C-alpha cells in the first residue's frame, strides 16, 4: 500500500516539476524574445541616430557656407558700389584677420572678422549714383550724404540675430570713427569704438592708400608709414599701429600676394 502512495506522490511531484519546467522555459523564451526585439529596436535607433547626426552636420555646414556666401556676396555688392576695386575687400579681410590675431582675439573671432569686414561699405548701395560716381571732389552736402553709408550699412544689418551679420553691422557702423573722436557717424573715441571698427578702419585705409585709383596714384610705402605714425592715437588705435609695424612683413606679404591685376 505504501508503495502505491509513494508512486502517487512521485507522480504528483513529476507533474509539478514538468509544469514548473514548462513555465521556466516559456519565461526564458519570452525573455529571449523581448531581448531580441529590444536589440533590433536599439540597432535601428542607433542607425537612425547616426543618420540624423550626419544630416545635422551636413545642414550645419550648409548653413555656415550659405552665411559665408551671403556675407561675401554682400561685400562684393558693397565693393561694386565703392571706388575701391579689384581685391580690395579680400585684402581688407586678410588684414583684419591678422590685426585681430595679433591683438589677441580668439581664433573664432578672427575668422569671423575676416568674413564680416568685407561688408564695411555695404551701406553704399543706398548712396545715389550721381554722388557715388562723381569724378571730382565732393562738396559739403555730397560729403555728408556719402558719410551716411556707415549708418545705412548698420541699419541694414542691425536686425540680424546672426552673430556674423551682427559683427558686420558693427564694422559698417564704426569703420569711419577715429580714435581721437573726430570720425563719423557718432564721433566715438578711444575704446568706445569697437575693436572690430578700429581694426577695419586701419585695414581699409592701409589698402586704399596703397592702391592706385583713376583719380590718384598709389601712395608710396614711405608716405603711408609716415602718415600712420602721425595718425597713431589720432585716426588710429595706437596699439593697432604698433601691432601693424611690429608685423609689417606679414601685411606686405598679403598685399603682394593679392595684387590687383
Amino acid at each position, binding site marked *: 500500500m505504501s508503495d502505491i502512495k509513494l508512486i502517487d506522490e512521485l507522480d504528483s511531484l513529476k507533474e509539478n516539476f514538468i509544469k514548473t519546467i514548462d513555465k521556466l522555459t516559456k519565461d526564458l523564451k519570452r525573455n529571449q524574445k*523581448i*531581448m531580441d*526585439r*529590444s536589440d533590433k529596436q536599439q540597432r535601428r535607433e542607433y542607425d537612425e541616430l547616426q543618420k540624423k547626426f550626419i544630416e545635422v552636420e551636413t545642414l550645419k555646414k550648409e548653413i555656415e557656407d550659405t552665411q559665408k556666401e551671403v556675407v561675401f556676396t554682400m561685400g562684393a555688392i558693397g565693393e561694386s558700389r565703392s571706388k575701391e576695386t579689384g581685391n580690395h575687400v579680400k585684402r581688407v579681410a586678410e588684414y583684419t584677420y591678422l590685426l585681430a590675431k595679433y591683438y589677441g582675439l580668439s581664433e573664432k573671432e578672427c575668422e569671423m572678422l575676416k568674413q564680416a569686414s568685407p561688408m564695411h561699405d555695404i551701406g553704399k548701395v543706398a548712396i545715389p549714383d550721381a554722388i557715388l560716381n562723381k569724378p571730382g571732389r565732393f562738396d559739403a552736402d555730397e560729403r555728408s550724404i556719402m558719410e551716411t553709408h556707415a549708418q545705412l550699412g548698420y541699419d541694414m544689418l542691425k536686425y540680424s540675430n546672426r552673430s556674423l551679420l551682427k559683427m558686420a553691422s558693427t564694422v559698417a557702423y564704426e569703420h569711419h570713427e577715429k580714435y581721437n573722436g573726430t570720425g563719423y557717424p557718432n564721433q566715438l573715441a578711444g575704446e568706445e569704438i569697437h575693436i572690430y571698427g578700429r581694426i577695419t578702419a586701419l585695414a581699409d585705409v592701409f589698402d586704399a592708400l596703397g592702391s592706385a585709383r583713376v583719380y590718384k596714384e598709389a601712395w608710396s610705402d614711405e608716405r603711408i608709414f609716415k602718415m600712420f605714425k602721425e595718425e597713431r592715437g589720432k585716426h588710429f588705435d595706437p596699439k593697432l599701429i604698433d601691432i601693424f609695424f611690429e608685423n609689417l612683413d606679414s601685411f606686405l606679404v598679403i598685399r603682394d600676394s593679392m595684387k590687383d591685376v
Partner: protein
Amino acid sequence: MENLIIKATQYTPAIDFNLETNILSITGKSYPENTFEYYKPIIFWIEEYLKNVKDEEILINLDLEYLNSSSLKAYFDMFDMLEEANSEGKHIKIKWIYDEDNDISEETGEDFIEDFKNLNIELVVKS
C-alpha cells in the same frame, strides 16, 4: 471601482480605462524610469476589473508607438492575464494600433499574435 485616467508624459502613455463603455485605451510612448512602478497600479486595476466584469464585450486599444524592453515585458505579462481571463469566458478583443511606417510596432503586434493564439488580437494601421 472607478475609471482609470492617467495623463501622458514625455515617458509614459495616456491611460483611459472606462467602466461604462468597457473600452480600455493606452496611447503613447512607454519608457519610464521605473517601468514596474508605473505599471503596477495599471495591472492592479485590470486584475480588479477582470474579476468584476461579466460577459460584456471588452475592447482594449493599444496604440504604443514606442516601448522599451521592460515595458514590452509588462505588456507580455498583461497579455498573460488577459489570456487567462479569456479562457475563463471573458470576451476580450485587443486592437494593436500602429503607424504605417513604424515597422517595430507592427512586428511587436505580430509577436503578440504568435504568442497568444487564444487571444483575439487585431492589427490596425492608423489612418
